[in-house]
């Protein structure tokens, strides 16, 4: 039996470093919101006739009246261009007649004149009103998911003493995973221009689902042991549970990581960021069920914080006594 709980401060400290680093990255750089969250337009264009450099394209966009355009290379002579909201979307009134050509078509024509044949691979535009709403609902979705999971675990573990602690610990672990993934994206956003879109939200929620999935498997062992024999010391029960589930935790994560790596290497460019979130999140989720959720549970059970607090207070009193 491996002694996990005895080294809990090492585990918690290890993930604490990452957690704080992720928080710092989020605080310093923040997430780079995609058009879903800020409004704007993006399009992907591939130049077929001759290689076009990023600088050339940026210059061309400036000439076409879009100095704000951000140009990002995306593979074979292909670029993702992001601009403010393009006037492509006129009001479709009852008697409007044919839709006037949108700004995107003007841009496409302008680029064609400069660089020759090209292919517009995708185009998306989001107005301000919608983006604010998406951001609000995305936040709501994450909070709702966390709350629902907390309640479910509470119910599933109700025959144990203090069942809500299990739910709370699972939620602490999932917040840990979500923050680490978001921190990674703050870093990627700063250095590689990776933006956060609805796919990112989906990925975060999946990571949350996976993290909880993993945590519950460990908690389920603890539940089994504690219900069968309530007199086993809690730390020991946690250690035994972690030891017994370790192979399973690693194997399952390995299986999912294998598939994701396969998709990352072969799969399309479009879901690369999505898969990256999943990959990091799943590794974090596996670690957090062992190193965070279970350890926090033990620390809570042992009233570690209270003891820690008393120790500090005691030292202070001692110091005060000495000073006096």
């Amino acid at each position, binding site marked *: 039996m491996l002694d996990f709980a005895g080294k809990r401060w090492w585990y918690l400290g290890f993930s604490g470093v990452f957690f704080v680093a992720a928080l710092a990255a989020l605080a310093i750089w923040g997430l780079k919101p995609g058009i879903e969250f800020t409004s704007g337009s993006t399009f992907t264009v591939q130049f077929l006739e001759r290689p076009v450099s990023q600088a050339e394209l940026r210059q061309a966009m400036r000439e076409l009246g879009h100095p704000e355009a951000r140009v990002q290379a995306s593979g074979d002579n292909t670029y993702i261009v992001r601009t403010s909201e393009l006037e492509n979307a006129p009001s479709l009134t009852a008697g409007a007649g044919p839709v006037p050509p*949108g700004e995107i078509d003007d841009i496409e024509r302008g680029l064609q004149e400069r660089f020759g044949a090209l292919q517009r691979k995708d*185009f998306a535009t989001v107005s301000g009103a919608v983006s604010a709403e998406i951001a609000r609902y995305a936040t709501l979705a994450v909070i709702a998911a966390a709350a629902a999971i907390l309640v479910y675990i509470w119910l599933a573990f109700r025959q144990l003493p203090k069942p809500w602690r299990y739910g709370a610990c699972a939620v602490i672990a999932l917040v840990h995973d979500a923050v680490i993934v978001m921190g990674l994206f703050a870093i990627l956003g700063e250095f590689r221009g990776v933006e956060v879109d*609805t796919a990112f939200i*989906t990925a975060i929620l*999946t990571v949350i689902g996976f993290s909880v999935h993993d945590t519950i498997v460990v908690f389920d062992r603890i539940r089994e042991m504690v219900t069968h024999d309530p007199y086993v010391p809690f730390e020991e029960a946690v250690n*035994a549970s972690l030891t017994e589930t370790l192979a399973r935790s690693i194997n399952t994560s390995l299986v999912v990581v294998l*598939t994701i790596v396969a*998709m990352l290497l072969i799969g399309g460019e479009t879901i690369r960021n999505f898969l990256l979130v999943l990959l990091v999140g799943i590794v974090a989720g596996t670690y957090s069920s062992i190193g965070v959720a279970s350890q926090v549970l033990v620390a809570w059970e042992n009233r570690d914080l209270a003891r820690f607090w008393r120790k500090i207070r005691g030292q202070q009193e001692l110091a005060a006594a000495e000073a006096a």
Partner: protein
Amino acid sequence: MVALTTFSIIVVWPSTPSRYLPGDFWPAGRGIKIGNWERETMRLGLDLRGGAYLVLEADPPPDYQGDIDQALESAKQVVERRVNAFGVSEAEITRASGNRLSVQVPGISLTEAQDLIGKTAALEFMVYDDQYNLVPATGVVNGQTLQMTGAYLKNNTYPSRLGTTFAVNFETTGVGAQLMEQITTRALQYPPGDPRRLLVVMLDGQVLSEAEVQAVIRDAGQITGQPTFSAASTLSKQLNSGALPIPLRTVQASEVSATLGEDSVLASVKAGLVGMAAVMIFMVLYYRLPGVLASAALVVYTSVVLMIFKLVPVTLTLSGIAAFVLSVGMAVDANVLIFERLKEELRRGRTLNAAIDIGFRRAWLSIRDSNVSTLITCVILYWFGDQFGAALVKGFALTLAIGVLVSMFSAITVTRTFLKMILGTPMAKSAFLFNASERPAQERPRRRMAEAAGE
């Protein structure tokens, strides 16, 4: 137990899509001939087949009086009718929150889609003039010459039977009544059979119906000469939703070219197969015989899920494929959980039969709880996606939910059946094949051990 096993097999096998496995779907689905696969089996989302996606928001003028909700509902019908008239198959038009319509039109560009939806949809009444040219049917109201259009009809028309043919009954608004009175009075001057006695109804410049005026029409009338009831009913619907009842504004739009979609499909199918192969190799190497069984269960699992996708049908998007891969991981996880328990029980010296039963019973709780939490996430994601008609998120949630549900079924039923099937064979006696030989029962807290022994 044998009966149960047989029963499980009976339950499992028909749900395996044997009619898809050897036939159309499996060989083509390997990413070699995607065109065939796409048409016959999977309903692909916009990101995989290319097309346009629009979110339209009701944009009522400041003095708008009507019921926006109702107007939007009929706007939806109008958009549907126009898209269908264009011959686009599998277009999806749904209501989204905040007075919005989400429109997905596969296979056409954004500009084409906007043209299509924004096209003038005027319902016009026409007559033949003395030169037998089709001209607008007009009348004079308050000194103004106005054309009789759909704007002067109430939107409560209904179809009815009229002898051997069918008709559409309509009521006119105040101005419409005056116009119709003048128009029909004029038409009645001409003898029956004269084209000038005809009243022609046109929609978007196409003739909808041509009928002879029988009497003066004022407040209410009929458009006769509809050959079938369904024709009359369609016409009635078209009249009720003649023009967009409310201006719509595009608040979100995106477009994916067909080539990009095709690339994604090819890449995803390839990645999926490589991923699955990697998983199977790993399972076989690590768990040996049960790993082989789990790989077989995985094949069953994959085909059942794909069959459900096809039969429902679930629109498969790129994120849906990712969700599917994730659900494969979770299906394998259920098996891993079971095998780990099985191994433990075997190392405690139980017979295989007992170990299978206890292993499954113990594993079930954690499989249930972990999967339910995933399902909860799916429900919330689906709701989130539904708020915007965001097909990406919705597709992901639905795919993952189906995957998780089937994986629970597959782990409990399929793997168990496979395990029980080998019970009678010599293979069942080999500890090596179950990778359960090296160590005795793992250490557990002492009290726990004592209790387990007494079980």
